[in-house]
């Protein structure tokens, strides 16, 4: 990979002269309702290299959630958000970042995950499960990569655990990676630690290419999009688990027990939808459950409202005290009369569930990752 910042100017690197200042980026940016972030202005001001340090010191560069709405809407095909990431890089390389960001980045370097957990405990989520572990000498059709958050956070571990049970039952040719598996770098990239991310891409490409995998199946949309976008030399294609499950569904290998007479609204995660272009598979899975009435948000698919979990925001609190976007989302779900908010991303589960609890709606509503729901409906 190019050490691009060292050989290109900031303007060249982010193609700032390609911008026509139409303002669609800021117009679509979901964060503008609660933070003083004007991404168009940054793209404009960053032409002036002498001003970059001053821009990098503005607190709002950390408000961006890397949802990619600005990139989706840009008529010139630019990625305005990456200008903000470039400014973050300047701060990160000076070392003067928030302690939470410092600790997350350092943990990725030392332990291969941003959650300050020991690498030796990465596979603890497998406890008491019959899991096939990948061996570089044995070809496997579906090689599973478990996201750091799913591996370590007890709230979302069920995504991986239920997946194992489902795969065993459906007789799928699969294997999970051993504990040398390391963070994909999604949040490292968006937090602006460019050097660390380059190292991760190099190391993980080498690690993953040791395996003879028909394809790599990711559980988190963050890993999915990161591998697809930033890992050009991976031997195996990368898919999201919802794509695999729809294949199994179409082949008659997935059946559900009983009915689930619930109104479910599906929230499109930014990294799966806007960035991964996967909108239909999660909906197909939900519609396959007998009794489910699938609702739709007004803001859905490529217009889906960001939950503010991406872009390194798990480690940076916004200065804004205005309503969180995840609260807005839960209120929208409530107005639709939804019993369940279903998502396909561990970060969305955490942010939306926090807001649901904060709004005191625990008795009336549930936030679930699709794999959690399917786990409850599997015939065991």
């Amino acid at each position, binding site marked *: 990979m190019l050490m691009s910042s060292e050989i290109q100017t900031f303007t060249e690197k982010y193609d700032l002269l390609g911008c026509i200042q139409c303002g669609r980026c800021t117009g679509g940016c979901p964060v503008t309702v609660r933070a003083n972030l004007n991404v168009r202005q940054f793209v404009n001001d960053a032409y002036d290299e002498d001003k970059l340090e001053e821009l990098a010191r503005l607190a709002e560069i950390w408000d961006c959630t890397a949802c990619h709405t600005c990139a989706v809407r840009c008529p010139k095909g630019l990625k305005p958000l990456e200008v903000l990431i470039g400014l973050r890089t300047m701060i990160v390389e000076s070392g003067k*970042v928030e302690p939470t960001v410092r600790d997350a980045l350092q943990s990725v*370097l030392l332990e291969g995950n941003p959650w300050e957990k020991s690498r030796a405990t990465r596979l603890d989520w497998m406890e008491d499960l019959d899991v096939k572990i990948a061996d570089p000498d044995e070809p496997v059709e579906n090689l599973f990569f478990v996201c750091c958050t799913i591996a370590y956070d007890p709230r979302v571990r069920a995504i991986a655990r239920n997946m194992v049970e489902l795969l065993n039952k459906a007789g799928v040719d699969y294997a999970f990676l051993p504990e040398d598996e390391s963070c994909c770098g999604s949040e490292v990239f968006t937090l602006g630690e460019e050097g660390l991310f380059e190292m991760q891409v190099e190391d993980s490409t080498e690690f993953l290419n040791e395996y003879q995998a028909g394809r790599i199946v990711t559980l988190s949309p963050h890993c999915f999009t990161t591998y697809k976008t930033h890992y050009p030399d991976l031997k195996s294609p990368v898919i999201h688990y919802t794509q695999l499950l729809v294949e199994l569904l179409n082949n008659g290998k997935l059946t559900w027990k009983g009915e689930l007479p619930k109104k479910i609204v599906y929230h499109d995660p930014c990294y799966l939808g806007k960035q991964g272009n996967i909108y239909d598979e999660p909906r197909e899975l939900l519609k396959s459950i007998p009794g489910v009435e699938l609702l739709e948000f007004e803001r859905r698919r490529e217009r889906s409202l960001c939950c503010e979990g991406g872009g390194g925001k798990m480690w940076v609190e916004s200065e804004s005290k205005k309503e969180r976007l995840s609260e807005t989302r839960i209120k929208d779900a409530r107005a639709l009369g939804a019993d369940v908010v279903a998502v396909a991303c561990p970060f969305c589960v955490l942010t939306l569930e926090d807001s649901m609890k904060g709004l005191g709606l625990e008795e009336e509503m549930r936030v679930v990752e699709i794999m959690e729901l399917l786990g409850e409906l599997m015939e065991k």
Partner: protein
Amino acid sequence: MKTFVCIKYVPDTSEAEVKLNPDGLSVDDSRFSFDINDADNYAVEESVLIKEAQGGEVTVLSIGPKKSDVMIRMAMAKGCDKATRVEDDRIATHDPLMVARVLAGGIKGQEFDLVMTGCMANDDWHMATGVALAEELGVNHASMVNKLELQDGKVKVHRELEGGLLEVVELDLPAVLTIQTGINEPRYAPIRGIRQAQKKELNVVSLDDLGIDPAEVGTDASQVVLEKLYIPEVESAAEFIEGEPEEKAEKLASILHKGGLL
């Protein structure tokens, strides 16, 4: 200003279950992550801040295994200039006095104004190594430092005492300071900085290289005998206080009062 900063590579025991090895004298550290000792990290930052303000040179000194080199490289990425790592399994590392003797051996014979280290270590919590190091070097010391100001040939330090009390003392240099957490905000060591720090000098030495007689820092020289480690039994003595809020408060106050806590 010539500074030595002494740092230790310690396990993070907060996330994994602590288990003992069959010898009963050591902890099974296979499931822990390791990192720089928390207070030492603040000492590194303070040494770099002083260098940035006044110029000079910072040398990292550590006793530890090869895997701790990453911690040393991080300190150098932040601005420390060179490092010495002592690797020798003859050192009685359970005894802070023996550790201090070895660290002193890594400093003696060289010019220095300040030696800084963390006020305590996250693994054994002795809070003694820095003070013992001052004795070994024959220089002044101040412990639990949470603010310092350098003056001509002197350092004025704020020491954190119990009960929120602060003590301000002035010491002639050279001196050893043990640094309390919170004195600054340690910076991040970016990977590009760590790569550049690969070019800086990191000497790995043994006791022989330092001219230290192993008999003076080994188990036989130590007056501390590690008899056993054990995990305290978990006691369950929870009492649920029943009643209306006012009654509960009264009962709770009475319990605390009887227990001498109020």
